Structures are given as structure tokens and as C-alpha cells.
């Protein structure tokens, strides 16, 4: 009986089967648990090492605007302000551009251009942030200083947002470089969400006599709204935590100024600049507390974004798998 003979060795191997499988499962489970462990470790380390500053300043830490390492007085408000303003400025510039690019590539673009276009936007995402910063220092800042900022001051100076000496370095430069960096993120997610809108929605709108623009507005953008917002928030998360490019152009002065021309400081850049030089435990602890705050904010922002993107693309991908 040849069949029983060939079956025999694999039946015998059940002993190996019984040992090998649990070991394998344990090994990969350990890897998976590492991920949970890493997150736990981050939370623990940040909280443990910032405890000293938390005890010393309490909630005053987040509303005080006096950052004085020599006197050991630490208030993080200027950094929080800088992070928020530069990120919101970046969103203001990036969102219309990113959504525009995504709509163009999914709805109107000739097929030949589609590949190269998405390749280019991905390439933008692959450039390290230190190189963005380098470019900003030597190209963007001089342009702002010599042309854009004087122009804005002349035409919009009365709004008090565009006042003061045009240094080039400052909040405006940080906002623009951040915008350039987050456009690829927002547009790639928006593109994903837009392609998830079912085809028949578009066809129905067109059949009702909608023009192409009306079809995009009513059928596509409205359906994909939650996902697009998710993409925008994901971009915001990236902008909040972005360090190098911002540090290089924002001017690094812990002050709250009304004008966008004035230098500012962000939470990430104060860490980059002062962490390795921090002398004294309270100083270090205060810096880590800034890190903790930054971490918590980005976690909340990212979780929100994931949830929104999921809510749109989830049903779609399941349908796509069935088809």
C-alpha cells in the first residue's frame, strides 16, 4: 500500500507538530506584545521622569509663560502656543491644496498622469525633515524676508497679524514649511477615501444631470467627508510633532507674540534644543513633561483621525475583498 507508506512520516511528525506550534505561537505573540509593551514603556518613562516637575509646578506649568532655566521657573505656555499656531497655520495652507490635488488625481486626471503624480507626492513624503529645514533656511526664509513679508506688511499690516520687522525666521516660515510637509499625508489619505466612494454614487449624480463639479461636490466630497477630516487630523498630528524643520526656521524665542513675523518656539523644538544641555533635575523633568504633553496630544489627535478614516474605508475594503 503506497498511500499508507507516504502518509506515515507526516503522521509521525505530529510530535514535532505539538511542540513546534506552541513555541512558534509564543514567539510571535512575544513580538506582538512588545508593541503593547513599547507603548506602556513610553507612557511609564514619560510620567515617571516628569513627576518632579509635576509636583513642583502642578497645572501652573501649562499656563505660566515664564521659561527661566536659571531661576528654575518653568511655564510651558509659549511652547504650547507656538505648536498650536504653527500647526493651525500649516493646516490653513495645506488643506485646500491637498484636497485639491486628491480630487484632481482621482476624478479629473488623465490616466497617464496619475501614476507619476502620486509618485511625486509620495516622494515629497520621503524627504527627511532635516532637508526640508535646510531648504527652508537657505531658500524659503530669504524669499519671505525680502519679498513676501514686506508685501504682507504693506497690504495687511493693519490686521496686526503681519506686523514687525521681517526677519524671515518666525511663525510664518514654520507654518509654510509644515504645510509643504503635510500636504502629501493629507492628499494621500484623501485620495484613498475618495476612491472608496462607490462608483454608482457618482453615476447617479451624473444621471440626474449634475455637472462634473456638482457631482464631485455632492456625491464624492460629501460622502467622503468624515474620511477627509480624518486625513486632515492625521496631518495635524504630524505637524504637532514635527521637530527639525520647525526648529530650524521658527526663530526659537519663548515668547507669545501676536504677529506671525515674530519668532516663536514649539514644544518639539524646545526639546530638540535644550534636552541634551539641560542641567539640573527640575529642568530635565520640566522638558520631559513637555514631551509627555506633546505625546498625549498627538495620541488623542491620531486616535481620532484613525477612527474617522476607518469609518469611511472599512465597509469599502470589505466589499472589495468579497468582489
Amino acid at each position, binding site marked *: 500500500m503506497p498511500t499508507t507508506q507516504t502518509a506515515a512520516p507526516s503522521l509521525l511528525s505530529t510530535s514535532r507538530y505539538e511542540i513546534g506550534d506552541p513555541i512558534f505561537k509564543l514567539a510571535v505573540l512575544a513580538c506582538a506584545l512588545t508593541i503593547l509593551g513599547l507603548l506602556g514603556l513610553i507612557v511609564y518613562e514619560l510620567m515617571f521622569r516628569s513627576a518632579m516637575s509635576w509636583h513642583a509646578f502642578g497645572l501652573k506649568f501649562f499656563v505660566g509663560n515664564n521659561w527661566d532655566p536659571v531661576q528654575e521657573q518653568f511655564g510651558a505656555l509659549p511652547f504650547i502656543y507656538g505648536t498650536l499656531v504653527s500647526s493651525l497655520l500649516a493646516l490653513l495652507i495645506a488643506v*485646500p491644496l491637498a484636497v485639491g*490635488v486628491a480630487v484632481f488625481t482621482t476624478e479629473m486626471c488623465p490616466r497617464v498622469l496619475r501614476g507619476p503624480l502620486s509618485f511625486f507626492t509620495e516622494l515629497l513624503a520621503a524627504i527627511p525633515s532635516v532637508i526640508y529645514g535646510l*531648504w527652508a533656511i537657505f*531658500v524659503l526664509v530669504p524669499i519671505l524676508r525680502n519679498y513676501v513679508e514686506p508685501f504682507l506688511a504693506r497690504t495687511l499690516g493693519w490686521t496686526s497679524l503681519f506686523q514687525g520687522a521681517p526677519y524671515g525666521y518666525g511663525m510664518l516660515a514654520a507654518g509654510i514649511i509644515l504645510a509643504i510637509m503635510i500636504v502629501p499625508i493629507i492628499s494621500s489619505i484623501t485620495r484613498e477615501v475618495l476612491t472608496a466612494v462607490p462608483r454608482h454614487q457618482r453615476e447617479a449624480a451624473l444621471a440626474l444631470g449634475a455637472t462634473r463639479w456638482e457631482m464631485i461636490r455632492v456625491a464624492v466630497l460629501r460622502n467622503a467627508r468624515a474620511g477627509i477630516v480624518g486625513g486632515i487630523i492625521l496631518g495635524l498630528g*504630524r505637524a504637532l510633532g514635527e521637530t527639525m524643520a520647525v526648529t530650524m526656521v521658527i526663530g526659537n524665542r519663548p515668547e507669545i507674540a501676536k504677529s506671525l513675523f515674530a519668532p516663536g518656539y514649539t514644544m518639539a523644538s524646545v526639546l*530638540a534644543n535644550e534636552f*541634551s544641555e539641560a542641567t539640573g533635575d527640575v529642568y530635565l523633568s520640566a522638558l520631559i513633561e513637555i*514631551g509627555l504633553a506633546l505625546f498625549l496630544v498627538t495620541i488623542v489627535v491620531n486616535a481620532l483621525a484613525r477612527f474617522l478614516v476607518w469609518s469611511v474605508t472599512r465597509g469599502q475594503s470589505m466589499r472589495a475583498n468579497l468582489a
Partner: protein
Amino acid sequence: MTVILVLVPLIAIFGYLVYRGIGSINWAFLTQTPRPVGEPGGGMANAIVGSAFILMIASVVGVPVGVGAGIYLAEFGQNRFGDSIRFTADVLNGVPSIVIGIVAYSIVVLQQKHFSALAGGVALAIMMIPTITRTTEEMLLLVPQALREAAYGLGIPRWRTALSITLRTATSGVLTGVMLAFARVAGETAPLLFTAFGNQFWNLRTDQPTAALPLQIFSYAISPYDEWHRQAWAGALVLIVLIVSAVAAVRFAVRRGSFGTT
């Protein structure tokens, strides 16, 4: 119209980078260590090697864990627990790199009492793991279920199926994920600032401060010296070329490899 607005900075950045970079790159730049201020010449050879060294540590630590977790999610993770791991990985992906730097500082640098290549490697590994996990899982799920069932039908145990059938079939995809994670961390500066710290000299010891290309670019870019600005551009060009060629090489290899396996 909007597309043009987006493409302008891209072309401007690349064009300017190549223009300034080509003009400043030379043999000395690639083979010598930095000279003191005011002395012309010198290069970033130690930073290039240091970057490679730190990335090697990061890959040795990060790739097995990331791929292992990806296998877990694909093979055993179709449940609540798997979902929570997936979510954690996504969250970890969004943690600002500078915060990862703080954590690596407190778990490695504070224990060793000084800045080191190991700390830099650990920081970058933490950044690589979630990306690799998610792409590995996606790639493994693309492998047809029938292939697994055929293996089980032959009496092959589950672990051998996962390793030598599923993972092997998905090799090219998994490698792409690894390379993308690699490219992403190769240009990271923020987590290295207070882990690897930078160094003006050669170093290949895991417990000593080490130069890295992005760090060197950063410190030269914010310096007031023209000579250093020139070198920062050259360094940026080298960095971009390394990243792009790494990604392109894998794309190429994958394209050829996948024809072989299917």
C-alpha cells in the same frame, strides 16, 4: 492649478538640493572627517559610516520584532486582542520622533551614563517596528488562504507553514515594508539628538557617541559658516541619494522576485 502649487516646492527642493549638492561634493567629503572651523576641506565620512552603523543596530533590533508581530497579527490576530495590537501599532506610528528620543534617552543613555550609538539604534528601532508590523501583516494576508490549507493538508505543522510557505511567498512585500521603514528612519534627526549625539571622529563602538548624517546636516545648517553650509548641502544630497537608491533597489528586486515566485 493646485497640482502645480504642490509640485513647485518639490521641484524647487530637489532642484536646489542637486544644484547646491553637486557643487560641494567631492572625494574629500566622502573620505575625510570634519576639520575645525576655518580650515577648508574635510568631509562627513564618519557621519556616513556612523549613520549606517546606527541603522544596522536599528534593523537588527527592529526587523525581527516587527516581522514577528506581523506574523502574529496575520496568523492568529483575527480577534479583539489582535485589533488592540493593530491600534497600538498605529498609535505608536504617530508618536512624535522626538518623544521616542526621550524614551530611548531614559532607558539606554541614563543606564549607560553616556550618549551612544546603541541608544540611537534603539530609538530608530522603536520607530521602525510599527511600520514593519503593519506592512508585514498586510502582505501575509494577501497570500491566498488555499495555499495555507494545501500545506495543512500535507500535514505540515502550522509554524512551518507560516515560515516557509506564507512568509516565503510574501517575501518581496515584506521586504518592501522593511525598506520603507528603513528609508523613513534613515533621515530621522530628532531622536538622535540626545541618543547618538554626534561625534567629530570615527566611532564604531556601540557604547560611544556616534556621528550621523542627519545630525551633521542639522548642526552645519544652523552654523554661521559658509564652508559648513556647503557641506550641509553635500550631506543632504548624499542622504537623499542613499534613501532613494535603497528604495529603488528594493522596488527593482521585488519586481523581479515576484515574477519568479508567481
